[in-house]
């Protein structure tokens, strides 16, 4: 085998990616009828003549769904259509009882927005389709003989968000979707749970020679119901398109289904059918012209959004960008952090941030710290004990273990378990013994090998069960070895 060198032409393509996101709104009832929203209830227990598409029924839009959609558009800095209308999108599929989906077409509620460094093309309202349960085989569409339709989901309010093709890698697409998810979650308008389908993402993918501005033929990737699948699916499609073009082929415009088990992509519908939806204005619904009162109410309901919060934590407290983003994107962590910070003005923001995002998260996983036995002011107290060098780092971790298990105040736990930092008097003797016990290490440290210090410090830590301050021990050792 000869070594293969990569020539510039072999890496001369760049991906151009846009996302289409469907968000189920967290209203009480469906988009156009009073049936309660549900997830996981018995099939077909939340239906009525409207959402079953019976003739002669009339849809009436849910005011709260429109309020949520207004909040989303404001959060994404979009331009509001003074008067938008609903359209019928016609196609036949068993999950669509009317033979059309009520959606929006040429006058969506919102246009031309932005989140982070990605432009938002449009935001519109529509209704979700029902759920097809495939009787028989594997649960995938192909191969099943008969299917059963569950209309509980049919008619759930959906907001569709379409981005401009501003993303240029699968990782960037994943990162941006995380920002969007955190933003929607903070707005409180959706459960944004990809597993349960309340947040769904399709991707439009094309590639083009680096440095050119024209867009290549795009494909649409469906069914990527996790961040990992989104990133893997896009990466696989970019690789497939590159191979096609390098081999002298052409990308065909088609819809592809990503199979997470194989990592492969397969065509879903034939292209000539997929866009013949014959949209026309929904005659059963009058135009939507949000009043100033509706817009004001949506604006008033906006909380501080994750993007702005990350910037504030970075700017005002000097936190590193990745820590600030973690606190902002998982707003329950940010809330806990800020609550702890305000409980004790003397707490060092950096140390506290690290104890929340590293130590607390390591112990709680995805659990909201507000639901744990750890009180924010207790964590602030622990961090103050650390900063005041009243406990060592390892003893503090033990205190936190106890707090996560049973709650309680750190000072009491320190006393109860004898975890207070060894005082200078106690340490003097311990350090002397450690040096005596490790003559080789002591000699090396004297000769300038700083890392030999570890054996001596380790011995002190073992004897004090971690109750010593490492920096202080090192200082004492150096002093005794005539290096101070």
């Amino acid at each position, binding site marked *: 085998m000869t070594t293969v060198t990569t020539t510039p032409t072999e890496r001369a393509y760049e991906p151009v990616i846009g996302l289409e996101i469907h968000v189920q709104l967290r209203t009480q009832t469906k988009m156009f009828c009073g049936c309660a929203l549900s997830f996981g209830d*018995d099939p077909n227990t939340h239906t009525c003549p409207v959402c079953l598409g019976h003739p002669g029924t009339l849809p009436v839009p849910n005011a709260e769904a429109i309020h949520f959609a207004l909040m989303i558009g404001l959060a994404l800095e979009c331009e509001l259509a003074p008067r938008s209308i609903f359209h019928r999108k016609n196609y036949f599929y068993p999950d669509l009882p009317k033979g059309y989906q009520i959606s929006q077409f040429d006058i969506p509620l919102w246009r031309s927005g932005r989140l982070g460094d990605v432009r938002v093309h449009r935001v519109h309202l529509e209704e979700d389709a029902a759920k097809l349960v495939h009787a028989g085989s594997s649960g995938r569409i192909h191969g099943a003989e008969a299917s059963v339709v569950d209309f509980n989901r049919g008619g759930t309010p959906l907001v569709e968000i379409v981005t401009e093709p501003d993303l240029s890698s699968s990782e960037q697409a994943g990162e941006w979707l995380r920002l969007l998810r955190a933003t929607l979650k903070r707005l409180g308008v959706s459960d944004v749970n990809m597993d349960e389908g309340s947040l769904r993402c399709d991707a439009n993918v094309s590639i083009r020679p680096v440095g050119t501005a024209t867009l290549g033929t795009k494909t649409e990737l469906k069914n990527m119901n996790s961040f990992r699948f989104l990133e893997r699916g896009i990466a696989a499609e970019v690789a497939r398109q590159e191979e096609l073009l390098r081999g002298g082929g052409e990308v065909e415009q088609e819809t592809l289904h990503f199979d997470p088990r194989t990592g492969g992509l397969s065509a879903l519908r034939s292209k000539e059918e997929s866009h013949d939806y014959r949209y026309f*204005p929904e005659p059963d619904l009058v135009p939507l012209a*949000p009043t100033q009162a509706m817009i004001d109410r949506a604006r008033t309901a906006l909380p501080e959004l994750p993007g702005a919060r990350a910037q504030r934590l970075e700017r005002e407290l000097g936190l590193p960008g990745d820590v600030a983003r973690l606190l902002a994107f998982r707003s329950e962590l940010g809330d806990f952090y800020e609550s702890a910070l305000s409980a004790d003005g003397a707490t060092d923001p950096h140390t506290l941030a690290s104890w929340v995002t590293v130590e607390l998260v390591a112990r709680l996983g995805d659990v909201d710290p507000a639901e744990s036995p750890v009180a924010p002011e207790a964590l602030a107290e622990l961090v103050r004990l650390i900063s005041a060098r009243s406990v060592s780092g390892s003893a503090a971790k033990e205190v936190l273990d106890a707090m996560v298990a049973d709650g309680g105040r750190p000072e009491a736990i320190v006393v109860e378990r004898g975890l207070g930092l060894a005082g200078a008097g106690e340490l003097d003797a311990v350090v002397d013994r450690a040096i005596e016990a490790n003559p080789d290490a002591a000699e090396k440290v004297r000769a300038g090998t700083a890392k030999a210090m570890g054996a001596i410090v380790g011995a002190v830590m073992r004897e004090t069960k971690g109750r010593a301050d490492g920096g202080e021990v090192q200082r004492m050792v150096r002093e005794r070895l005539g290096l101070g």
Partner: protein
Amino acid sequence: MIDREQVLHVARLARLELTDAEVERMARELSGILDHLERIVELDLDHVEPTSHVVALENVLRPDEPRPSLARERALAGAPDATDSGFRVPSPGAAAANGS
């Protein structure tokens, strides 16, 4: 002029099965409708807002309050085919093989 192929395409999208005679008639009638639209296009309508709706109403909304749903047996009663809990339909996979 609408030709036979266009009629068949639209008929297929609407899942309509037409006899040859019906295809001929539809081609004629649809062409007539388009001719009429072309006459309307001749009018000067530059200053007329597109009319999507003929009623002067906006923002007819309902509060987000749950109302009772149908009992499942009633919901399923009108279905051509059903299981105990749902509407049974031919697998869309089979339909996809026919190009839908």
